[in-house]
């Protein structure tokens, strides 16, 4: 039943549903998924019992319980028999101490790929493009433990042909390789992909320092990973980023995306107006940390992400540790329908808890 729904949606343009229409679909899908996870994931059932959830009283996905993303580091959460799992995504947290484990069965994995393709195609078209990853090949070297960076690269690589990495192991820019590649594919659009901070530090800064000017007007840059580091370390915001990249290499098509390993497939992509958009397969809610109520548009709060894809694991409704703002619904000047938002960054970390922080690494 769920796959029928999904297949129908896959035939639509990924940002073409007004919120009120989307809501009907999301309500049905998310309530149904919640039932499924209660019936098939013991830990999820324990949580719903713990909070005394009565699904009979719930009609809107806004009232469904949200799991803190952290839980996927602490528990192995599955909603299908383990034998049906074909892929396990893992992603270390920022401290590198524990791994989120996301279990995918065939159908969840397939749909994640289809949805990701649908969304990314709206940016790059329907063909695979020659692809340059702005990172070092070492980042996907150790397959047993990808960082979030590695996971993103693997995910996006399916849109690329003849993929190269343009940074060396020491993160220096292999400019010769890059120029060669540009020349080899001079008649094609080229997809550049990288982690926001890495693109800035090891690509943009390098071009500036070495006084290299390139013509990348036929390239599309998709980047993710957040702005916090750039803002804090270099005082560069999204506007500066795009502007300065354009100045150095004429690249116009620069798109940020917001996604996470706990909900792959349903990424949120940046539009021409600088806002992030969830597709018809997912949505964003902003909650007040004081009482988790939904805040009004324009106000900051914690980002909750909902997605109709997570079937083999209870990741359909998650509370992230990021803060964001929803700016409006259905009226973004870029033409995409649905909500549109910005991510401000990670929640400010608490002082470490317990008796002494001095020696806990």
């Amino acid at each position: 039943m769920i796959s029928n729904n999904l297949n129908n949606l896959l035939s639509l343009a990924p940002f073409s549903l007004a919120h009120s229409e989307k809501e009907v679909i999301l309500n049905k899908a998310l309530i149904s998924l919640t039932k499924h996870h209660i019936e098939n994931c013991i830990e999820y059932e324990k949580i719903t019992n713990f909070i005394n959830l009565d699904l009979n009283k719930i009609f809107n996905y806004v009232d469904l319980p949200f799991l803190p993303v952290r839980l996927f580091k602490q528990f192995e959460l599955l909603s299908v028999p383990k034998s049906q799992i074909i892929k396990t995504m893992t992603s270390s947290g920022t401290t590198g101490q524990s791994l989120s484990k996301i279990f995918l069965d065939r159908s969840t994995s397939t749909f994640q790929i289809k949805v990701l393709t649908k969304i990314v195609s709206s940016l790059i078209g329907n063909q695979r493009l020659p692809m340059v990853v702005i990172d070092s090949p070492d980042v996907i070297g150790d397959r047993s433990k990808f960082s979030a960076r590695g996971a993103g690269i693997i995910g996006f690589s399916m849109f690329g042909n003849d993929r190269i990495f343009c940074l060396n192991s020491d993160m220096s820019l292999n400019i010769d390789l890059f120029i060669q590649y540009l020349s080899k594919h001079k008649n094609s659009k080229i997809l550049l992909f990288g982690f926001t901070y890495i693109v800035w530090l090891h690509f943009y800064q390098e071009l500036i320092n070495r006084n290299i000017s390139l013509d990348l007007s036929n390239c599309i840059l998709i980047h993710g990973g957040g702005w916090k580091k750039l803002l804090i370390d270099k005082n560069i915001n999204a506007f500066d980023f795009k502007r300065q990249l354009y100045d150095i290499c004429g690249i116009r098509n620069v798109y940020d995306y917001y996604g996470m390993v706990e909900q792959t497939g349903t990424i949120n992509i940046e539009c021409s107006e600088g806002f992030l958009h969830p597709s018809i397969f997912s949505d964003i809610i902003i909650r007040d940390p004081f009482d988790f109520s939904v805040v009004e548009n324009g106000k900051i709060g914690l980002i909750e992400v909902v997605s109709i894809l997570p079937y083999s694991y209870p990741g359909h409704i998650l509370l992230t540790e990021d803060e964001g703002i929803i700016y409006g619904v259905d009226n973004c000047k870029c033409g995409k329908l649905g909500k549109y938002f910005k991510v401000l960054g990670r929640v400010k970390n608490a002082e470490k808890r317990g008796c002494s922080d001095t020696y806990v690494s």
Partner: protein
Amino acid sequence: MQKNADAATLMLVNNPLVEVHSSSDFNEDALFSASVLSPFSIAVIDLLSTISAKIIRNKLITLYPDVLYFAFWCSRKNLTKLASTYQAGSNRFGRGVIFHIAPSNVPINFAFSMVAGLLAGNVNIIRLPSSNFPQVQIICDAVVEALDMPEHKLLRNQLLLIRYPHNKSITDYLSKKCNVRIIWGGDNAINEIRNSPLSPNSFDITFADRYSICIINSAFYLSYQNKAKIAKDFYNDTYLLDQNACSSPHLIIWVGNDSDTCLAKNVFWSYLHNLLLEKYSLSPINAINKLSDSYFSAINLKDSHLVKAEDNLIIRISIDKLFEGIENFKSSCGFFYEFNAVNISELSSIVNSKYQTITYLGFDYDYFNLFINNFIPKGIDRIVPIGKALDFNLTWDGFDLITSLSRIIHFDAFE
């Protein structure tokens, strides 16, 4: 920093918080040849009462009830009272140099440690918490001013307040040179610091991770007039330090019949909630932490239920059974397990050596005495009224600090 300056002058010349960068910053002569005193010496009592007076005059004091409490504790009146209960033995003196490592969760803890060390007659090097607590600054300012006064000149070498980021070589140096090392938790810090060896003649006093609870007599609570005061007292035991102190309760046990308990809970938490709306600010990360911790408990514990609340200020988890290991499920910033008991003896199944403080309302000495003598619990160091969880006592976690930090020169007569 002047390398060869008198160690205590290091503190005075700069700012009360001396930043130490290497072990060569210490003036060995000044520090390690300073004299020890007898416990409760007049000079130390004089110094502490000066410090007390200075703190009380600080305008910021009303914001920090913990600092105010410290100041009253160090008043001449209180110290004289303590001195009189202490049995002076002849030829008892401080042990030498005490290296104190303060915890980061309770700002004033370093000060009590310092005072215990001073009262026992020692030279004290105190490593301050890494966070910038205002309480620490207020106390350090008062200490520096007091030591600067001519009447306290003799004690200038008794005290050095230092701060340094993680630096094993400094910790190694001080550990090797001290006579006693006092480590105020937690377990991880103690294990880490124990990588720095002591010299053979020295020993550790450690205060490891502890667990505390609160027990309330429902009927007594309902009949108690000043419920706002109880809320305030409970707040001081818990939210004042984000529930991070070892003495802060994480499990609340209600004793009484069902209807009294049901009503008492509603009233108690309601009073507390009103106080929190006024005084406490829950940061977003702590809201997430509490949600995560509550779901962690939901998965791991049987028979636990989240009590519905209108906001995230107070997270209450009601449990149907007391279970061993409950101390492993604590959180902070307002996260409580609740259990209805018929009698305190039900605790006997779960109390272990981690249990430190029981705060209570509505019971008397006999009630606890019966429990203690019938069950001889493996833990519990103190039983105090709600509001006094953070009160300091020179006997702490079972250590009599004055006798532990001093030594006797024993004399046998010739027959």
